[in-house]
C-alpha cells in the first residue's frame, strides 16, 4: 500500500478522531488524533484486517506550549508504517494508556512518565523506570533545571582547567 492509499484508508476508518493527517519523510504517515480517542484509534489500527499494525516505538515530547505523545506503528504483514500523535495540555498531561492493547508499551510508557511526567491512566505499574524513585522533576521537560545535589551527592563538576 502506498502512502496516500494508507492515508485514505486511515481517514475512512477513524475519521472522527483525526485532527491532522499528512505524509512524513521515510515513507511514513503522521496522524494526529484527539487524545480522548487514542484507545479506539489504536484498536482499529491493530485489529483492522487491512492494517494489522503492531507497535514499534513510543515517545513523548515537550513542545513548550503542550506535550505530545507519539506512537510509531509498523505492520508486519503489510509492511507499512504510521505515526500516531496526540497532543496533551501543558498543565495536566494525561492520556489513556495503550497498555491494554499493546502490552509491550508498559515499559515505554513508564519511561515517558519518568522522563516527561506524562500520566498514563489505566497503566498497570506507573512508576519511575530509569531514574531513582526519589528523583525530583522530569528531565526531558524543556524547563527542567539540573539539580546541584541529589541526596547530598554533589552533582556539580568544576571544570578541571579553570
Amino acid at each position, binding site marked *: 500500500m502506498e502512502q496516500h492509499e494508507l492515508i485514505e484508508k486511515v481517514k475512512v476508518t477513524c475519521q472522527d478522531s483525526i485532527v491532522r493527517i499528512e505524509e*512524513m*519523510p*521515510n515513507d*511514513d504517515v*503522521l496522524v494526529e488524533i484527539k487524545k480522548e480517542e487514542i484507545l479506539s484509534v489504536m484498536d482499529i489500527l491493530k485489529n483492522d484486517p487491512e492494517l494489522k499494525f*503492531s*507497535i*514499534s*516505538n513510543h*515517545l513523548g*515530547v*515537550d513542545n513548550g506550549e503542550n506535550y505530545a505523545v*507519539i506512537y*510509531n506503528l509498523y505492520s*508486519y504483514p503489510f*509492511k507499512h*508504517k504510521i*505515526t500516531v500523535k496526540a497532543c496533551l495540555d501543558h498543565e495536566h498531561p494525561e492520556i489513556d494508556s495503550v497498555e491494554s492493547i*499493546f*502490552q*509491550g*508499551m*508498559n*515499559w*515505554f510508557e513508564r*519511561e515517558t512518565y519518568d*522522563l516527561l511526567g506524562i500520566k498514563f491512566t489505566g497503566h498497570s505499574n506507573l512508576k*519511575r*523506570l*530509569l*531514574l*531513582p524513585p526519589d528523583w525530583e522533576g522530569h*528531565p*526531558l521537560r524543556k524547563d527542567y533545571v539540573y539539580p546541584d545535589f541529589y541526596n547530598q551527592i554533589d552533582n556539580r563538576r568544576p571544570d578541571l582547567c579553570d
Partner: protein
Amino acid sequence: MAELVSQEMFLNMGPHHPSTHGVLRLIVQTDGEIMRRAVPDVGYLHRGIEKIAERVTYQGFMPYTDRIDYVSAFSGNLGYALTVERLAGIEVPEKAEYLRVIAAELARMGSHFIGFGAVLLDLGAVTPFVHALRERETYNDLMEMLCGARLTHNYARIGGVSHDLPEGFKEKTLKFIDHLEYEFIDEFNNLISFNSILVKRFANVGVVSAEKAIEYTLVGPNLRGSGVQFDLRRDDPYSIYDRFDFEIPVGKGKFGTVGDCYDRYWIRIQEIRESCRIIRQALEQMPEKGEIRTKIPKVFKPPKGEIYVRTECPRGEMGFYLISDGGKSPYRLKIRTGSFSAMSILEELSQGVMVADLVAIIGSFDIVAPEIDR
C-alpha cells in the same frame, strides 16, 4: 511438632552480578531454586543521552551514538547518520555507502561474538567465550585500522564516513572472513553449540511465541528467534542493503520449541555467516575511487520536521525519532533500542524457571545494559 514455615526468598541479583551484562538489577523472588518472579530494575547506566542530544550540535552528537550500544558502536553511528540525512535530504556518495555496510556488518559480527560468547560464559563455559573474543580482537584491529579507535569508532559522519579504506584492510578483512566461514564457526559449533549439556540448558527454556514477541516489541535476532521472518535490511532496506544477496536465519526449533533460548543463540551464529557474505559482496562491488563524504556546512541546520528511521542493529532495530525545529541541535531525539524491549519481557518469562535458567534467558536476549538505559 511445630509446623514448618516456608517462606519465599527475595534476592537482589545485581547491580553488580557477574551475569547481568552491564549494570542491571533484578529483584528476584525465589522458592528455593525455582523462580517466582524476577522484576528488572534498570536505570543504573542512565546517562541521559536523549537530553544531551538536545544540547549538542547535530555533528557533535555522533560520538554519543557510539555509547548507546558500545558493543557495536558503528550501528548507532549509522542509524543516527541515516536519520539526519533523510531528514535533511543529503545524498551519500556511493563509496561511503559501501564503507558503511562493511563497517556495520563487521560491527554486527563483533557484537555477536560478545553476544553468544557471554551467554556461554554465563552457562559456565569459559573457553568458547575466550575463543569468541579472540575473533572479536581481529574485528577490533580491523576497526582500528579503519578509523583509529577500537571500541567507540565514531566512524560515520552526516553525509558519509570519516576515513577511506586503509591499505591492507581489504586483504585482512577477506582473510578474517575466510577464517570465520571455513574454520571458526564449524569449530565453535563442534566445541560448544552441539554439546549436549548446552542443548539441555538452552532447548525449551525461555520460550517466546511469535505473537508474544511482536506484542512485546521484540526486535532483531530475538524476534527472528521466535520464527518471525523479519529483517529491516531486507524488508525496509536502508543504505544499499538491497544490492546484496543474503539470507535471514529464522528460529526453527532446532533442538526444542520455536522461540527458545537455543534458537536465539543459533540465529546469532548463523548471522555471522550472512554478515561474511555481505562483506564479501560489498568488498567486491565497492568502487575503487570516489568521494567518501558529502560536504555539509559547519553550522548544520536541517529543515524543520519529524522523522523516524529504524536500522537493523545486532540487538534488533535501533530507531531514531528525530524532531527538528530548524535549529543547530535536535529538538527531541528518541532512541528506541532492542535491549529495552527485550528486558521488558523478562518479568513474564521468568515465572517458574530456575535461577540458572534466568541467567540463560538474560544472556540469550543479548542484553547490553547501557542500551536499555541510554
